[in-house]
């Protein structure tokens, strides 16, 4: 190297350049890290930082045998950005159409429609095709701002919102540019209408609307998690920059006391009743009287929670849980209250006799059935042929006979013997006029009246025979369960357990006694009296409910419907509420079954009136026959049958 090249001037120049370069770098660093720090940081955070939500899974609703009644199903919403499609992918469209079950012309039209006019009328009527819905529904398409020509760019259009994981994987393999999917959880009710009034449903936004879905939302919902992270220029997460991860807490599973098989038996029986008698509504409740656990609660009409939004306005009443929110006059089945109360108070015994041919009975100056203000103080009962027949007795009836024949006159005299205060006390103790604490369905307390009110005596003279008192089916069911449960009023239970998604029990609901209503001895006596209703042949009012080998206990009810047109009084005997409520086996009750049918078609009955023993008792019988093998209910009477002979090799 010559000295001339490495002159002092050049060395100084080089040093200045190098120094300037370093000084420039230093200045830039100061600018970036000190002066412009806040602005740049916010820009970077906007560009790179992201919060990724991690959605919690809503808990399942299970029956008592862990059968899934409501669950969250992972689905994919398949969407397309029509502007982002590539011509080279057109050959894959037929396969895509096949996978999502959409006709190829319809799919082609969605994929090739890039704009939509700013004002487009929604499709008219039900003839709108899936295609039309996809292009005009607010939820099925996202539009950009209108351009100068008044057109709005379709940013994305929904192809399907029911794509399964496996189908989604196949679609991903097609690798069609512009077609992408979003994973979501959707609530599914695998058994459709089964127990829909209990389970309820969540809406499209996954918000609970009614039933247990709403009542137990706190447990079912869970807590969403999230990840604080960064993303690259392709919007992909840079996992190494995750700064915080909060895992989602999945919702708890809820185990019901309901048994899906028992529920389906009840609903099948209701369907049979509906097909034969065309009632306005009907309810079946099945429970275990020893625990208060409901095994089934079915209403007619009903609905499918999977398609709740397809119900018309006229069909929407089907969503009401009429077993708990609808009131009715129970009729004769309410007689168990007066008789059990009088027995428990020691006022009567099963052998006590009452003259059931008397035209009038008096209580504090008023006659049974009507007050002096209503007219002549004569006994006037409903002109029911059965009552006319049983009205002519050659001897005073015992209490057992009053129950077996369902004598109105006899029961009213028993009620008079109790007095209005005591009858009211026992009616309240049986759970009437108060809420049972049932969590779903908008429970009604019913209407019992109260001593001291203006219309009380008018009510009291009718209450013993089940008139002038409004109850829900659930209340009447509980009242019968008091006798089955040895005199205790149990809290009706619908939820058995709350569990984590890993199966650990969080809370377990056990049987809960609300109060003792009658003594165990009285309950036993009542069961014996009600046994006569079913098992005394023609002397009882419901031999249709009898089952060979089993002591069935129950009571019928046939109540004329109250007029709803503003005119006081009742409709004719073609419009009645038929019921049968009972349990079996008598000595060890395992199931309590209530069947209540509102306004069955009387023309479909042999006698022109839909009596409880004609409409409801056979349904009780049919249900019981199916429950015996399923619940392994043992007979309490050994009867020799063909099966016995075969089993024993021809020997008894």
């Amino acid at each position, binding site marked *: 190297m010559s000295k001339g090249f490495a002159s002092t001037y050049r060395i100084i120049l080089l040093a200045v350049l190098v120094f300037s370069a370093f000084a420039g770098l230093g200045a830039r660093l100061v600018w970036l890290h000190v002066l412009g720090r806040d602005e740049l940081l916010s820009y970077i955070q906007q560009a790179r930082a992201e919060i990724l939500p991690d959605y919690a899974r809503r808990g399942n609703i299970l029956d008592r045998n862990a059968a899934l009644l409501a669950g969250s199903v992972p689905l994919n919403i398949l969407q397309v950005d029509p502007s982002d499609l590539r011509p080279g992918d057109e050959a894959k469209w037929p396969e895509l159409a096949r996978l999502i079950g959409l006709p190829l012309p319809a799919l082609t039209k969605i994929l090739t429609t890039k704009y939509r006019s700013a004002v487009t009328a929604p499709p008219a009527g039900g003839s709108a095709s899936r295609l039309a819905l996809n292009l005009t529904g607010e939820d099925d398409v996202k539009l950009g701002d209108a351009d100068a020509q008044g057109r709005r760019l379709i940013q994305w259009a929904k192809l399907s919102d029911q794509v399964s994981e496996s189908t989604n994987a196949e679609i991903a393999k097609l690798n069609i540019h512009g077609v992408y999917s979003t994973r979501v959880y959707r609530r599914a009710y695998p*058994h459709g209408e089964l127990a829909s009034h209990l389970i309820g449903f969540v809406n499209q936004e996954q918000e609970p609307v009614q039933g247990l879905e709403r009542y137990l939302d706190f447990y079912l919902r869970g807590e969403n998690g999230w990840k604080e992270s960064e993303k690259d220029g392709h919007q992909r997460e840079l996992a190494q920059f995750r700064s915080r991860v909060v895992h989602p807490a999945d919702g708890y599973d809820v185990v019901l006391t309901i048994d899906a098989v028992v529920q389906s038996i009840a609903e099948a029986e209701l369907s049979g009743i509906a097909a034969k008698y065309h009632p306005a509504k009907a309810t079946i409740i099945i429970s275990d009287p020893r625990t208060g656990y409901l095994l089934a609660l079915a209403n007619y009409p009903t609905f499918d929670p999977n398609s709740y939004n397809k119900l018309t306005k006229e069909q929407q009443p089907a969503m009401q849980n009429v077993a708990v929110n609808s009131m009715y006059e129970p009729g004769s089945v309410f007689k168990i209250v007066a008789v059990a109360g009088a027995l428990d108070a020691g006022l009567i015994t099963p052998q006590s006799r009452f003259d059931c041919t008397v035209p009038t009975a008096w209580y504090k100056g008023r006659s049974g059935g009507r007050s002096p203000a209503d007219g002549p103080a004569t006994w006037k009962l409903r002109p029911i042929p059965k009552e006319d027949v049983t009205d002519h007795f050659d001897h005073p009836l015992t209490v057992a006979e009053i129950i077996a024949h369902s004598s109105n006159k006899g029961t009213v005299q028993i009620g008079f013997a109790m007095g209005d205060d005591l009858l009211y006390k026992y009616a309240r103790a049986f759970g009437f006029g108060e809420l049972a604490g049932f969590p779903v369905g908008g429970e009604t307390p019913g209407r019992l009246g109260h001593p001291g009110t203006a219309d009380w005596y008018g009510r009291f003279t009718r209450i013993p025979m089940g008139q002038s008192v409004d109850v829900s089916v659930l209340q009447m069911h509980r009242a019968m369960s008091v006798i089955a449960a040895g005199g205790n009023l149990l809290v009706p239970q619908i939820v058995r357990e709350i569990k984590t998604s890993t199966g650990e029990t969080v809370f377990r609901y056990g049987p809960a006694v609300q109060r003792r209503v009658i003594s165990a001895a009285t309950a036993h006596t009542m069961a014996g009296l009600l046994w006569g209703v079913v098992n005394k042949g023609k002397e009882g009012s419901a031999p249709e409910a009898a089952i060979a080998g089993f002591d069935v206990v129950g009571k019928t009810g046939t109540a004329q419907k109250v007029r709803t047109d503003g005119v006081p009084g009742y409709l004719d005997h073609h419009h009645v509420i038929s019921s049968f409520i009972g349990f079996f086996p008598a000595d060890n009750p395992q199931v309590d079954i209530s069947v209540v049918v509102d306004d069955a078609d009387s023309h479909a009955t042999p006698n022109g009136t839909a009596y409880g023993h004609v409409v409801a008792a056979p349904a009780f019988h049919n249900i019981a026959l199916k429950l015996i093998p399923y619940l392994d209910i043992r007979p309490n009477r050994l009867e020799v049958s063909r099966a016995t002979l075969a089993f024993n090799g021809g020997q008894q």
Partner: protein
Amino acid sequence: MNTPLRSGFINPALACALGFLACSGATGVGAVWLQHQISVAANENKALEQRIAAVRRSSEQLSAEIAFESDTAALLQRNSQMKLGMVAPALDQQLTIAEDPIRHLSAKQGRELFRNSNEPFTGLRLALGH
């Protein structure tokens, strides 16, 4: 003329400088490698999470499909479609017993076996195995 003192001064300095550069370089490379490994591990974790989530979704979907297929109405429809003719037993076809049915039926079969035999029962001869 030898200059051992000067050479002795420069060589250690050069060696230190080179050593320092090597250490700095190694530390830098190590830090980059570590960052890369963190990135790789994070991406592997992410992939595993996605696989677990996919398996879980698949499992949940399968459970739902099983639930849909085991609905009573669906089973009855399948029974009808496939003409299986399965019906619930009538009450008179059922027998509830208190004893073990297998023992009972075995005993009954044994009784019938001996009843059908024409030869008189003369006792049992047991042979011990070797």
